[in-house]
């Protein structure tokens, strides 16, 4: 078992050897792009049980220290698992840095698919840190499972503008790249306000997109920032209400934003529903206007289990049909002109 101790900077090394963790620069992350950076509990448990099965790749030693090229999380997991040394293969110190980075991208791609933040961080680093040319970047995109194109590159590198909290959110909730890109376009203060909201209501991709649509259109119409919508009452009161479940909060948030977005529809529908409630208070019978009030018909629905029950409901409905509230509701739907 060799630990590489005493080898010079330009010395040759064995193909694969055990390296003490204390000789590895664990704090440096020149070639890292994994997200989240910390190893998960499953990896730590696996290392505890089986040891580190897949060797890491190290460059060096230089002045007795090794630099991590591939395996930042495996090394962190090994440390957490109580290992003192890890299997490592050497990497030629003369390779250009962008090649070393691509090596890490390639190795990760072989182990598991990258998530969108990893793709974003990897591409951002290739372009900004390693100044790689288009050929190298497009090669990296292919390794990350992306079609090489400037459009897709721009879309992914935009994600580095996300706040740390939203970066974690999009990965943990599997948010689509389209929605993630929208979030990345928000000012940081709006992102912070949205993060607080999402912590309380935990929305998936489609629900998040709908919420963004509503909020952004309200913001554009009223000339206000998103943070005002997300952080002011009554939304703040809804998400701060400890008596409600997450599901209830989610529904209430959506309802509130819809009412803000469609005040005329809300007012007219509430007016019609109030008339119907008064005009047709027959238990077990529902009278509903058309969706979005697009139409002039009311829908009547009820169930019955016997002819007697049917007759009773019909008698009560006949009484309701004479009520002025029902006429008023129908007149509102028909948009009858006032005299």
């Amino acid at each position: 078992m060799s630990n590489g101790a005493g080898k010079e900077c330009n010395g040759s090394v064995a193909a694969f050897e055990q390296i003490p963790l204390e000789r590895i620069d664990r704090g440096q992350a020149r070639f890292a792009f994994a997200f989240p950076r910390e190893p998960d509990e499953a990896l730590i448990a696996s290392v505890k049980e089986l040891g580190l099965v897949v060797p890491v790749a190290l460059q060096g030693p230089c002045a007795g220290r090794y630099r991590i090229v591939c395996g930042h999380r495996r090394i962190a997991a090994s440390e957490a698992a109580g290992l003192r040394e890890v299997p490592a293969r050497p990497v030629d110190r003369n390779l250009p840095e962008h090649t070393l980075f691509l090596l890490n991208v390639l190795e990760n791609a072989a182990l598991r698919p990258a998530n969108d933040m990893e793709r974003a961080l990897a591409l951002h680093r290739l372009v900004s840190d390693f100044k790689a040319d288009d050929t190298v970047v497009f090669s990296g995109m292919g390794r990350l499972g992306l079609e090489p194109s400037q459009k897709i590159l721009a879309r992914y590198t935009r994600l580095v503008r996300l706040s740390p909290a939203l970066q974690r959110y999009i990965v943990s909730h599997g948010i689509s790249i389209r929605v993630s890109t929208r979030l990345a376009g928000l000012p940081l203060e709006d992102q912070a306000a949205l993060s607080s909201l999402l912590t309380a209501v935990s929305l998936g991709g489609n629900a998040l997109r709908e919420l963004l649509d509503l909020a952004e259109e309200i913001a554009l119409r009223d000339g206000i920032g998103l943070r005002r919508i997300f952080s002011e009452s009554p939304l703040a009161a809804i998400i701060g209400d400890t008596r409600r479940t997450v599901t209830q909060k989610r529904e209430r948030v959506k309802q509130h934003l819809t009412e803000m977005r469609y005040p005329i529809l809300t007012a007219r529908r509430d007016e019609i529903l109030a008339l119907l409630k008064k005009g047709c208070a027959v238990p077990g019978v529902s009278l509903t206007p058309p969706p979005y009030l697009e139409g002039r018909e009311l829908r009547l629905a009820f169930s019955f289990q016997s002819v007697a029950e049917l007759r009773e409901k019909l008698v009560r409905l006949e009484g309701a049909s004479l009520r002025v509230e029902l006429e008023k509701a129908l007149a509102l739907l028909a948009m009858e002109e006032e005299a």
Partner: protein
Amino acid sequence: MSAGFSPERILIEAGAEDLPMTRRILARLPGVPVETLRALGPWIRQTARDADAARAAKNWLVISRYPGTFLKKCPGTQGFVCCNYWVINAATGCPLDCTYCILQGYLENNPMIRVFANTDTLFSELERAFAAARGRRFRVGTGELTDSLALDGLTDLSRELVPFFARHTNAQLELKTKTDQVGNLLDLAHQGRTVIGWSVNPPPVIASDEQGTAPLARRLRAAERCQSAGYPVSFHFDPMVLEHGWEGAYREVVRQIFETVPATSIAWISLGGLRFAPELKPIMRRRFPESRLVCGELVPCPDRKLRYLRTLRVPAYRRMLRWIRALGPQVPVYLCMESRDVWEAVYQGPPSELQNLEGLFG
């Protein structure tokens, strides 16, 4: 006069090289790079992948032969009242750039302005269609997938279409535009069988949401010139944008129309609220982030399109109808892509029962 369209590049699809319209277009655009394509498909895919499709769609001109049928019934919209319009798609794509344009939904597959230069096929087809149905009245437009006159300075298509329709008593042509490019029309013998139409909106809407189009004043001036040349004219308040304060702005446009042209020269006026497929909304927001069009109370209707609430549309149509009738009581006014319910609420009856609309809807 607004500037005519001048593309950055011209691509000629194989088979269209020697057509008269192709030669005419090339002669009018010396110095513009020209490339011949064997097939359009691979070029479209590459452009959609690598280029700014929106920019290409406004600046690259493709000249092709149209392989299909030129004359089609206007698709209208399912379940809504239809006015029996026909369309000729002699071009697709448009150099103008309106926020609400449906063409934006097809940019990935059509990143170009495309002109179909095989007009001999077009006129043969029209000849056969009109001859086969002499008892039917064809009302035909060319502005479904483009602006009828925005490319006319290059193609001169109107100088073939107008005389053609002049010879056919069972057909009427409408050239609908947001430009003032009517120079080609004024000396043509139209026999009153071509209507020149303008989409109109208040100046603030034109400025914010109809980029590249002629200002209202120029459109009306062009209408006056056409009317003086004996053309019937039409006006289309479509899309109507029902933002706060819309009443005063639209009433003023109505007044200006009747101040510019005599009511007797107006063939029809149409009204249509802003409407679009839901898929268009994110495209509109991305391409025109400052536009407030998407902020209105637009809701899904039975045909899936988003429209203003009925409670907004119906009163708007009623008011427009009152203002128009006050100045031109005999001018046919119809609704575009509206439900029977809305027709009933506005007119108290379907179009087929309205005296001066039976010619359009019968």
